[in-house]
């Protein structure tokens, strides 16, 4: 287990370093002179020089990279060009909103997917199965940025039950969480159905049946427990998609999280903030994936002993 832990953490560190370097080079993708793009064409040469020096863009690239990585290690993400505040501070204000949305979306996804996947697997090749899978197919194919306006149209504008946008009280969380959760529920329910069907074909299920357990007990005690492992992994892997989906969902509902910050900063040409947001979400994703792997190994002895 120790060796598995060390090797897994080492490769996570390499990925984190690579991600940081890649994010660093993002600013060099800005066409032409990034300083001129950020300040606008009519800017004074003196201002440009000052910004160039402040961002360290006058130094050779490898020195810039060194400073940047050193800053990251000390938790220094630089300063926003728009508000002149430290970027770390701005991120901290936005993280709770995105976290809240992502977790709520996750809960919605599991609440929809679990019953749907189980029904589809147990009633395979019946209209129940067909209906559940048609729903799943629809869920994968509806993009967040259309699902959101649709929900607003029905529940906020026509029925007037829920607020249109913003983050005020639990009612305002319902529609964004539904928007974010349904897409993931679709993928998740297909996965639950597939793994459950596989597990139900195993010998130990037949054994359990043969020793006189009721069908419900077999499903609950034996089948579901074994089917949950791959589902947990998928849940971890999907978190990245969930965080990315949150960017668009936040825009639709004016939800004041990281996603909204990314788009605002792109519009303000506040590129250091864009870089920091991408870095933050990617790091969160790597962290969750590593934790998922470790949990998986902890739950399933075959993996850690196989290493």
């Amino acid at each position: 287990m120790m060796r598995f832990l060390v090797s897994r953490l080492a490769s996570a560190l390499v990925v984190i370093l690579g991600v940081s370097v890649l994010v660093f080079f993002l600013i060099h993708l800005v066409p032409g002179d990034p300083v001129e793009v950020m300040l606008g064409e009519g800017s004074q040469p003196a201002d440009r020089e000052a910004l160039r020096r402040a961002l360290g863009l006058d130094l050779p690239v490898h020195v810039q990279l060194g400073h940047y990585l050193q800053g990251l290690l000390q938790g220094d993400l630089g300063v926003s060009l728009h508000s002149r505040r430290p970027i770390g501070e701005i991120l901290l204000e936005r993280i709770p909103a995105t976290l809240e949305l992502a977790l709520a979306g996750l809960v919605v996804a599991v609440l929809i997917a679990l019953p749907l996947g189980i029904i589809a697997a147990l009633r395979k090749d019946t209209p129940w199965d067909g209906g559940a899978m048609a729903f799943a197919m629809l869920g994968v194919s509806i993009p967040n940025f259309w699902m959101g306006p649709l929900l607003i149209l029905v529940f906020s504008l026509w029925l007037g039950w829920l607020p249109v946008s913003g983050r005020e009280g639990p009612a305002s969380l319902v529609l964004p969480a539904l928007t974010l959760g349904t897409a993931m529920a679709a993928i998740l329910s297909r996965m639950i159905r597939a793994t459950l069907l596989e597990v139900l074909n195993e010998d130990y299920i037949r054994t359990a049946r043969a020793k006189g357990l009721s069908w419900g007990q077999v499903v609950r005690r034996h089948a579901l427990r074994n089917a949950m492992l791959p589902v947990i992994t998928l849940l971890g892997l999907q978190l990245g998609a969930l965080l990315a989906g949150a960017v668009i969902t936040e825009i639709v509902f004016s939800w004041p999280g990281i996603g909204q910050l990314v788009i605002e900063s792109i519009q303000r040409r506040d590129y250091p903030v864009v870089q920091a947001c991408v870095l933050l979400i990617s790091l969160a994703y790597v962290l969750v994936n590593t934790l998922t792997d470790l949990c998986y190994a902890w739950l399933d002895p075959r993996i850690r002993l196989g290493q």
Partner: protein
Amino acid sequence: MLLAAAGAWLPFEPYRIDLARILDPPDATAWLGHDDLGRPIWDRLVVGARYSLWVAVLVVGISLAAGTFIGAVSAYAGGWLDHLLVRVIDIFLAFPGILLAIALAGLMGPGLDNVVIALSLVGWVGFARLARAQVLTLKQRDHVAAAVSLGAGPGRIVWRHLLPLMAAPLIVEATFAVAGIVIAEAGLSFLGLGIQPPEPSWGSMIREGSRYMLVTPHMVLAPGIALLLVVLAVNMLGDRLRDRLDVRQS
């Protein structure tokens, strides 16, 4: 899709502004109604479909070619090159795809070319991983050993002896990728980072439409349903292909 292709020759008027008909609901002359500038929505949808599918085909083509090449080279060469490329693939996989595309498109500036570049930079990774896994298993097969002993070079072996065998999973993956890219392109346009007005794009039509939702829902409904139908059709095609070609999801 046929309509989108035919749209090039038919007399559509996606840019004609008819101020008298602003936000008109559907009627006999324009069966999906008019938008906030009085432009016929049906015409804009058809022209938008052309951009959307063109971007999808281009991006998937580039990603498929680049990803397969990198994945195949990585697996076939092995050694330090494989180690290096696997690390690079891991690093790209660490970014949630659409987020990286948003950042890239945002930094490079909007426009059709940049959308294609941004989405391709994100898209190749999936194909590379798939191609690498395929080559790793396939190169153990006897017919490859036979070809090697007959003196075939690595390029010839990958091209003639491995690619035909891995075509099925790659085609299935590419089909789903088309659906993903159609959504991603519309997403970028929705955020204002994709195809720029006045060119019609389904994503920006949804964005404009959601502003007038209370007055006229048809403006947001029409492009959304079009998008849904295309993505649904492509996804179902992918499912069908997967069953037909008997590809197991890895």
